[in-house]
Structure formats: structure tokens, C-alpha cells
């Protein structure tokens, strides 16, 4: 068990599934000791920033229309989009967090990564191609296709902004913690660095720059992780059995690391977490947005195939890296805070904390200071790439959904809409910087869980039902979407992670499980169905009649917005 005071790069999701697993996908938690200045990392990160700014400059010159700004002009290839989608998933938290989880618990780390991966085939089978055929810039384009523009866009934009805000706070705080740990720089320096750079990428380079930053990061991370896993495998002559045997020998938990441990304490919470991961993936606005950057449904389909392969490969790498870290680090006291009597706990006493440091330390063990600096810089760069995508998704929801369709009611120009988007990006960035400072000492681990749960309980049901079911009406989508959103937020607030651990309310949690998805997702679907059935208005009949056009277009792509809409 990692003490609360140590750094936990935590997926709140895991935090919810089991406090012990509180560290795998999006937030960094607890106080951190600032490490010595890591000059190699700072230099490599600086080079990454310069290079991506160069790309942003080029992208800015090519970004003229709204389509360029929101969707990179539809000119991203399937391979590039696959890398970018995979990049959105290969966060600092999944790289450091999952390998840290494997380091501490072995097998349990695998359960985590699998939950994240299996959402992708479902996305491909149900919505990927239809999204591309129906939408243009945001997923609200799809949800509001035949429903009432004003109310559905308000709902979608609310869902988007809730997801984006919580995800952003977790990332900003995470960036602050990581910069202390990996670069040896103060927390206060990370927040403006991340905030200003993400504003620059988004405002000047739009989707093109945001995508390329993600692609470059994905390549660097895949390259670095592949090299580390390769070094580990070479050490064991490519015999995984030998690696596992060596790990079991040195690990304090012994053979228990080869089997499920304490990760799954409560089956209901586990299945609920699984649902949140699968359907949350299919409802994250910054990911859905990526389907509009490719030319057609075929490219959308192929990009998910590539992404699934890359993400699966990456998770296998983190598994090998976690086991490699066990065998390389656990017998080497130089990585530990050694007690006066020369003894140390092989998990608890790892310098910097076993939640985040195993992958970083392994980089030093197999590749010296250069690889150590490289992996540190890439880990920090991952945050930058993810927040840029989040900012663009939030800014698009404000300008394309709220401003153009709700406030200006369609009577605006492309140029003005894009300007509103850029202003929104600046505002979101500034707010994120402020919140990054406000939440410095707060436990933000539950926020990523909240983001996934809201995406699964609000965005995804509305999207899926409006695409697939003729009977869906505006009333049904509104009631179901808001019920899903409110119930998910409420159940998380009343769960142990927030009610007891964050708000310090006495006694036990009001909501007994760790994740609400098992309840809030069906609630949203049933409410959409029920209130659509009950809706006998004129509008409802018109909306159901308009299904034909949407249906034909979603299945065939006839009438879909082209790659370049100038």
C-alpha cells in the first residue's frame, strides 16, 4: 500500500476501484519531494517545445478556414490519426502509472490496461464511421443532426465542458507534480509553462498543430518505451518466463504478483469501472473530435484499427517495463531511501515513490542519464499534448455549439466563429492555470474518474441513441442526458473517494460503490427511451420523420461533409 503522502500518479478510476490501485490514468496525487535538477530532461523538453512551436508556425500559415481550425481541413491520414488517438491514450499517467502498478502489484496492472483498450473495438463497431458521415467539427453536430439545435447543443456543450474541465484540472496538477519529480523544477513553474504552450498550440495552430504535437509525442514515447522493453527482454534472452521467474524471486509479494490481488475487492465496482472505461472512451469529446479530421468513413475506420494496435502494443510494453523494473531495481539500494540499519522496503522506499518512478528509474538502469532525461522529458510532453486536445475540444464546444448555433442562431460567419474559438481557448487556458494553482494541494484523483463517468453517462448515450434509434426525440435526449450527467456527478460526490476522502465527512460513504457507471449509464439510456416515448409533440414527430435522411447518411456517407469545406 502506497501511503497517501507519497506521490500517486493516479487514475481516479483506479482510485475508485480500489484505493490501492489509485494511480493509473490521469491525475497525480499527494505531496511530492522536489528532486535535483535534471538538466538532460530540461534540454530535451526544450527541444521538443521548439520543434512543436515550429510545427505550430507552419500549421498557422495553413490554417485559414473553420474546417482547418477545427478539423485540420480533414487532411489527416488514417495512420496519422491512429497515432494521434493512441497518443491521447498514452498519457503520462498510463505510462508511469500502469508500469508503477505492475511494479507494486504485478498482474493487477494488466487488468487496468485491458479496461482502457477494449473500449476501442466498441467505438469502431458502433460509432466511428457514423460520426464521420454525420458530423463536421464536434460530436454535437451528430447528436443535434435532426433534433433541436439549441437545446441539444447546450446539452452537448455542457457535457463537453464538464469533462474537459475536470480532466484539465487533473492534468494541470499532474504537470506540477511531475515537473518537481522529473525535472527538479518548482510546481509553480509547470502550471504556466503548460498553460501558455497549450494556448499557443491551439490558438495559432488549431487542430493541425494539436494533432501533430500528439503524433510527435506518441512516436517519442513509443520509441523510448520500445527501447526500454527491448533492453529488458535482451537481458532475459527474450524468454518472458525467465523474466517472470526473476521478478517473483526479488518481489516482496513473491508468486502473488502473477495472479489477481487486491485490485478487485468488489465485483460491482469492478464491472462499473469497466463500463465507465468502455463507454467513457466513446464519449470523450477530445477523442470524438479526431474522427472529423480524416477524409472519410474508411479513414476513420482504419485509424481506429491502427490506434487499437498501437495502444495494445503500448500496454504490453508498460507490462514488460513494470516487470523489468522489478528485476532491475529491487536489488539495487541506490534507487531506495535506505534506513540506518541498511534495510529498505522494496516498494514503499523507492525514491520518488513506486507509483510513478519505476519506469523512469528503469530508463536510467538500462540507458543511463541520457535515456533517463529523454523519458522524463517525454513523460512531461505527454501532458502538454493531451491538454492541447482538451483545450481545443472545450473551445470548439463554446464557439461551434454555444456561440454559432445557440447565441448567434446560425447567423454568424466562419471567421467570427473561429475567433470566438480562439478567445475561448485563451480563456480556458487562463482558467486552467488559475485552477492549477488553486488545486495544488487538493486530491484531484477523482476528477479523471468523474470525466470518464460523465462522458459515459451523458455524451455517449445521447450520441448513440440519436444515431441508432429512430424514436429518439429532443425531450428524451435532454432528460436522459442531463439525468446521466447529474446522477454520475452526484454518485461520485457521495462515494468514498470524494465524500469521505476529499470532503472528510464522517462515517461511511452514502453511495456504496466506487464508480457510478453501472447505474448512471442505464439510467440515461432508459430515460432517453422513456421520455422519447412519452413525447407526443409535433416536434417529436418531425424529428422522427427526419431520421431517414440521417440514417441513410450515417450508413452510406451520401451527403457527408467533404474533406475540404471552404
Amino acid at each position, binding site marked *: 500500500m502506497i501511503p497517501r503522502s507519497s506521490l500517486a500518479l493516479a487514475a481516479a478510476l483506479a482510485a475508485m476501484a480500489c484505493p490501492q490501485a489509485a494511480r493509473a490514468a490521469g491525475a497525480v496525487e499527494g505531496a511530492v519531494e522536489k528532486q535535483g535538477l535534471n538538466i538532460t530532461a530540461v534540454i530535451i523538453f526544450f527541444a521538443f517545445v521548439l520543434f512543436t512551436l515550429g510545427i505550430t508556425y507552419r500549421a498557422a500559415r495553413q490554417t485559414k478556414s473553420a474546417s482547418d481550425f477545427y478539423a485540420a481541413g480533414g487532411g489527416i491520414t488514417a495512420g496519422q490519426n491512429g497515432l494521434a488517438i493512441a497518443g491521447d491514450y498514452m498519457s503520462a499517467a498510463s505510462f508511469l502509472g500502469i508500469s508503477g502498478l505492475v511494479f507494486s502489484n504485478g498482474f493487477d496492472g*494488466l487488468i487496468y490496461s485491458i479496461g482502457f*483498450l*477494449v473500449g476501442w*473495438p466498441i467505438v469502431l463497431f458502433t460509432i466511428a464511421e457514423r460520426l464521420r458521415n454525420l458530423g463536421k467539427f464536434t460530436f454535437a453536430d451528430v447528436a443535434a443532426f435532426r433534433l433541436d439545435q439549441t437545446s441539444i447543443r447546450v446539452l452537448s456543450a455542457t457535457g463537453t465542458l464538464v469533462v474537459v474541465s475536470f480532466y484539465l484540472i487533473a492534468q494541470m496538477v499532474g504537470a506540477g507534480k511531475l515537473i518537481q519529480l522529473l525535472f527538479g523544477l518548482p510546481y509553480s513553474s509547470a502550471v504556466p509553462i503548460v498553460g501558455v504552450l497549450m494556448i499557443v498550440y491551439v490558438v495559432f495552430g488549431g487542430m493541425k498543430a494539436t494533432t501533430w504535437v500528439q503524433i510527435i509525442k506518441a512516436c517519442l514515447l513509443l520509441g523510448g518505451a520500445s527501447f526500454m522493453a527491448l533492453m529488458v527482454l535482451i537481458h532475459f534472452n527474450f524468454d518472458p518466463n525467465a523474466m517472470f521467474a526473476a521478478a517473483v524471486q526479488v518481489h516482496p509479494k513473491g508468486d502473488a504478483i*502473477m*495472479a489477481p490481488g487486491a485490485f478487485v475487492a468488489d465485483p460491482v465496482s469492478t464491472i462499473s469501472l469497466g463500463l465507465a472505461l468502455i463507454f467513457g472512451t466513446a464519449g470523450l469529446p477530445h477523442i470524438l473530435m479526431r474522427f472529423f479530421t480524416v477524409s472519410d468513413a474508411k479513414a476513420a475506420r*482504419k485509424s481506429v484499427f491502427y490506434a487499437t*494496435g498501437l495502444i495494445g502494443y503500448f500496454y504490453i510494453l508498460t507490462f514488460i517495463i513494470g516487470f523489468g523494473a522489478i528485476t532491475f531495481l529491487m536489488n539495487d539500494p541506490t534507487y531506495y531511501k535506505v534506513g540506518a540499519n541498511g534495510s529498505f522496503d522494496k516498494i514503499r522506499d523507492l525514491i520518488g515513490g513506486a507509483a510513478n518512478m519505476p519506469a523512469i528509474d528503469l530508463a536510467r538502469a538500462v540507458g543511463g542519464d541520457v535515456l533517463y532525461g529523454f523519458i522524463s522529458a517525454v513523460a512531461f510532453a505527454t501532458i502538454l499534448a493531451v491538454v492541447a486536445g482538451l483545450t481545443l475540444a472545450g473551445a470548439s464546444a463554446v464557439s461551434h455549439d454555444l456561440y454559432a448555433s445557440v447565441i448567434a*442562431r446560425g447567423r454568424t460567419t466562419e471567421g467570427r466563429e473561429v475567433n470566438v474559438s480562439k478567445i475561448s481557448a485563451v480563456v480556458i487556458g487562463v482558467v486552467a492555470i488559475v485552477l492549477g494553482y488553486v488545486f495544488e494541494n487538493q486530491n484531484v484523483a477523482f476528477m479523471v474518474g468523474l470525466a470518464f463517468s460523465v462522458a459515459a453517462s451523458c455524451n455517449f448515450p445521447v450520441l448513440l441513441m440519436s444515431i441508432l434509434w429512430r424514436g429518439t426525440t429532443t425531450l428524451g435526449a435532454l432528460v436522459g442526458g442531463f439525468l446521466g450527467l447529474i446522477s454520475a456527478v452526484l454518485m461520485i460526490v457521495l462515494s468514498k473517494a470524494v465524500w469521505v476522502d476529499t470532503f472528510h465527512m464522517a462515517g461511511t460513504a452514502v453511495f456504496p460503490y466506487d464508480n457510478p457507471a453501472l447505474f448512471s449509464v442505464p439510467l440515461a439510456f432508459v430515460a432517453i427511451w422513456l421520455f422519447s416515448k412519452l413525447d407526443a409533440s409535433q416536434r417529436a414527430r418531425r424529428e422522427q420523420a427526419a431520421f431517414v435522411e440521417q440514417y441513410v447518411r450515417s*450508413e452510406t456517407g451520401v451527403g457527408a461533409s467533404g474533406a475540404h469545406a471552404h
Partner: protein
Amino acid sequence: MTVNATAAAAVEGRITADVGASDYQAILRNPNFQTLVSSRNKFVWTLSMLMLFIYLGFILLVAFDKALLAQKVAGGTTSLGIVLGLGVILSAFILTGIYVTRANSRFDELTERLKREVGR
């Protein structure tokens, strides 16, 4: 669709001038469209259920039969759980591969034929 919605849709270019309501009705009645939709839906439904079955099966084993997953494979240190876990990752990749292969050939072919027939 309301007037506002139509205005908004026109601004976004969602309503393309050259696709009229009658075209959609024609496509809807086209046998190629019906074949495309019914065969693809069946295929997608099967694959989705298979993926959920594999994933939930794995999670339920993790929750209820830890002893089985702890069993050793072929007398080594590797446990059945690790082999199955990697199998789930691999199956996700294979299932998406199967879908993409089928969609790139059969479904795209049907779509193209349909578009030719309705003159798009």
C-alpha cells in the same frame, strides 16, 4: 426541422444542395442499401458481443476465480492470468482487424454499388 435549425444547418453546410429528400427515400428502398445495412449490423453486433463476452469473462474470472488465474502454464512461472490477459489485448486487435478487412472489401463495395445506382 425548425427554421433556426435549418439556418444553423445551412451555415454548417450540413444540408447539401444536391441531396434532396427524395434521394434519401430512393436509397432507403434500394435493395443494395438493405443488404448493406442488415449484413453490416449483424456482423457488427456479433463482433461487439464477442468483445464484451471476452472482456466481461476475463473480469468475472478476476473477480470470482483467482485460483484458476494463478495456475501455472507449462510448468513455468507464467500464470494463466497473464496469458489470458495478453489474449484479451490481442483479441481486441484481431476483432478490429476482422471488421476493417470485411468493411474495406464487402461493405465498401456494396456502398459504392449503391452510390452508382442512385447516381451519386
